[in-house]
């Protein structure tokens, strides 16, 4: 959600029950303005919070002019002092995939993971247990990246692609209509497209290249990984991810108000196929 319209956004997303306390809200409004100035961001998004056992991580993201350019992610424990996180890499994802359980809330905390490695010494093969230390900060970076790639979404038409290839905020976006808002195909993953190239010519025929340049949620795997609800008597559409429980997307049809927030434990729901 946009940091500038934080209060309205929080009110719209409050149906999931996860808000911010008044002091957090006030401090975010103050500190994110300064973050925008110091890092020279075009736009600052309040991304959400990851609930730790001891403390919570508050996450913000800074966007440049091009909306799909790599985002910079910052975290804070007290909503005032923000630290920049390194960009996520493939290596981090594989390294942190072994970590289970909750976040602690201490970025310097180290998870211990014992790996069994096979060591060849001549003809004999020894199995050796190696303890791998994984910093929580690394895990934080990796989880935020995974959530961004899997469930960060925007409504169709909110962004548009210029003929030069850069992706800008669509100023003429006036919200989805009611009938469109109820369809998953009206929402796009807020990331570089992956599935788009695999589409057939027939499917591409109906697309508007300046609007349909991202993957839609329609073909997400597993099917049914989104709960789409009309709340307040059709005045608000709320999408909740079941794959990453805690992610709430809201949009008021026929207005510009949209955004998403993640408030959760930072764990993927791998039980989803059993639960549907």
């Amino acid at each position: 959600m946009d940091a500038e319209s934080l209060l309205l956004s929080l009110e719209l997303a409050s149906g999931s029950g996860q808000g911010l306390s008044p002091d957090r809200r006030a401090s975010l409004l103050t500190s994110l303005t300064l973050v925008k100035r110091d890092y020279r961001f075009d736009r600052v998004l309040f991304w959400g919070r990851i609930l730790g056992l001891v403390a919570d991580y508050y996450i913000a993201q800074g966007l440049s002019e091009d909306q799909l350019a790599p985002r910079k992610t910052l975290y804070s424990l007290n909503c005032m002092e923000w630290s920049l996180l390194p960009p996520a890499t493939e290596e981090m994802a594989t390294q942190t995939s072994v970590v289970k359980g909750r976040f602690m809330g201490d970025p310097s905390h180290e998870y211990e993971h014992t790996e069994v490695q096979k060591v060849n010494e001549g003809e004999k093969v020894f199995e050796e247990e190696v303890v791998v230390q994984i910093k929580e900060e690394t895990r934080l970076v990796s989880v935020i990246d995974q959530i961004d790639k899997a469930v960060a979404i925007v409504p169709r038409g909110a962004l548009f692609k210029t003929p030069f290839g850069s992706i800008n905020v669509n100023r003429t976006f006036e919200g989805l209509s009611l009938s469109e808002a109820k369809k998953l195909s009206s929402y796009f993953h807020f990331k570089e497209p992956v599935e788009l190239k695999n589409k057939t010519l027939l499917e591409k025929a109906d697309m508007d290249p300046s609007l349909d340049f991202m993957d839609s949620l329609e073909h997400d795997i597993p099917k049914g990984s989104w709960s789409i609800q009309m709340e307040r008597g059709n005045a608000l559409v709320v999408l909740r991810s079941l794959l990453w429980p805690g992610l709430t997307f809201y949009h008021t049809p026929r207005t510009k108000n949209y955004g998403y927030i993640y408030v959760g434990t930072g764990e993927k729901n791998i039980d989803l196929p059993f639960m549907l």
Partner: protein
Amino acid sequence: MPSSFRNFFLLTHFMEDSTTLKQEKENQELVEAGQPWEEMVTASSQDPESGLSEPPEVEQGPEAGPQTRSSPPGIPQSGASTPVDDLTGPGASTPPSPPQEPSTSLSPLALARQDFMAPWQSNKTTSVISEAGTPPSDHLEQPSDKGESTSHQTCQSEGNTFQLSQQTKCHLYGPRDVSYNNSKEKELRFAISQEKDSNSNYDLDQPESGASEMAPNMLEIAIQNAKAYLLKASSKSGLNLYDHLSEMLTKVLDTRPENPVDIIENISQDVKMAHFSKKLDTLQNENEMLPTYEIAEKQKALFLQGNLEGADQELEDEITEHALPNVMESAFYFEQAGVGLGTDETYRIFLALKQLTDTHPIQKCRFWGKILGLEMNYIVAEVEFREGEDEEEVEEEDVPEERDNGDSEADEADEDELPRSFYKAPQAIPKEESRTGANKYVYFVCNEPGRPWVKLPAVTPAQIVIARKIKKFFTGRLDTPIVSYPPFPGNESNYLRAQIARISAGTHVSPLGFYHFGEEEGEEEEEIEGGRDSFEENPDFEGIQVTDLVESLSNWVHHVQHILPQGRCNWFNPIQKSEEEEEEEEEEDEEKEDEKGEEPDYAEQEVGPPLLTPISEDLEIQNTPPWTTRLSSNLIPQYAIAVLRSNLWPGAYAFSNGKKFENFYIGWGHKYSPDSYTPPVPPPAYHEYPSGPEITEMDDPSVEEEQAFRAAQEATVNPTEENEETEEDEDEEDDYD
């Protein structure tokens, strides 16, 4: 739709004309072709004949000329079009007179010609339509009724943009028809676009000829022509550029966006899209808005309910006011903790709870929380009825269970030929009575404030046991069947009730000392059973320091009974009762008694932690502490409150400011586990038959063995026969078994 409309129009037009041969021809071709330009061909095929009818037309020409001139000259369009009319008048036959006039004045021969004229005229109107898109129908009817000369006048006087375009087209027909008449070529099957090209050529030529006659201002005519070009409707969409540009500019000026030149493409697109969305509006909008109004109407009733109560009910009001919790106050505290629904939604829930307490005999009511579902959410209210007013649905569910037993016995009696199942269902553990254990409170749910409250059925131990083994999302519809393994006894309302019971038992906590055991019940027999299940508010509670509540978990206690693995809060010994029930059966069947003997006579009593146990004794979830405590604000700690977050049931919260406390749950209704969920393995299959040596497969005898056997047979003939007989007997016996 336009083409079919056109055909229909043509047909009616022909019917009015009621000509003889030509009309039939026309109709046939209409049916065969059904395309407007095809009819153009038929129209032009008649052109030679219309060429014959030139002399009378010439006579009419001057008549039409003055008519058009008589139109007000102040309008610039008329100035430009009059010379064209002059051209068309003598050139050919564009302005045909109304049908009545020639019928009276002309000879029968001329009448016949007039008949030929009529279809031609109609074709011309259709061709105009085909190029000008779909004009309003009233303008279409004008040429058919009054003839085209009158329609010209109306066009000019109104100055409408569409009619202007139509008008320019009409003028163009004159010269073109002349060329058709002169050349009589077969290039008539041109596409409309090509014809239009030729039209525009004529369009350019005309003003020169017109200028030579009338000598109007050249610049004005050039502007008119440019405007006429812009007003030309697209053959695909029926729009024209002039209107489009003016709409775009209107929109830009109305909305005044910044740097409009950057988004002019989008504005253009939006304007075009608006043409389509308007058509849909009449069909869809009404339905889409229905739920919005419906819920608004229902919630209106919530806001009005206060006015309906009369002054007579003051006594009752006092009771209900006591029953109604101060939801807004607790919502305020939870907001300090950073959880809770929005103020608006909370207030609506507050009103809905008031409605619930007003309509039901409720002693105590509490906003339990909200459970998220796939399609809708549940708002849950925890309710305690007044004494003696909740005995509505008692023992309804026990009856079907007994029936089931009876059915199975009857089946066994009827079908004794089939192998009998030795499986005996374990003794069903009876559910706890209302006001005790897991059924201590009654729960009401509704999907949205304003919708009706639905009472959830009482929970049975079996439901709790199975609910622990499954993990399913709620859908939001109470009658949804739960498809799971192991099969869940009941539908979603039962599952919801079981999860509510589990969450309540796990997460409802209060500060130490807020509740204490009642003194009267301390000496009763309940203590012997292993735990007292009732408590009352401690009047002497003086409050605990908030910092103490944050620092030590032992200052918090559970005030809801732990649910045993059995699915009950108070342990129930299944064996005692089963023996009493099955005494008769045991006397009949000795075998069953033997089987019973294998089972343990004494089931070990399950004991859970007693009521009001500190939560510091809660078990860890694989190195994860079950609770997280926090001070709501570090900035102003002196007014902060203690916040407790359950890690076992994500979404369960409790707060206390030292004296008050409240519990709240919002989430998907699932327990946390660091490991992934694995459905339980199905139990091993029962043996179909006892495995023994008589049915195990034997190895085939080798050649040596056979030879040895044969030698033995030959040696003793008689004994082998006896052996065979006995073997056969044995086989028969096996078969019977």
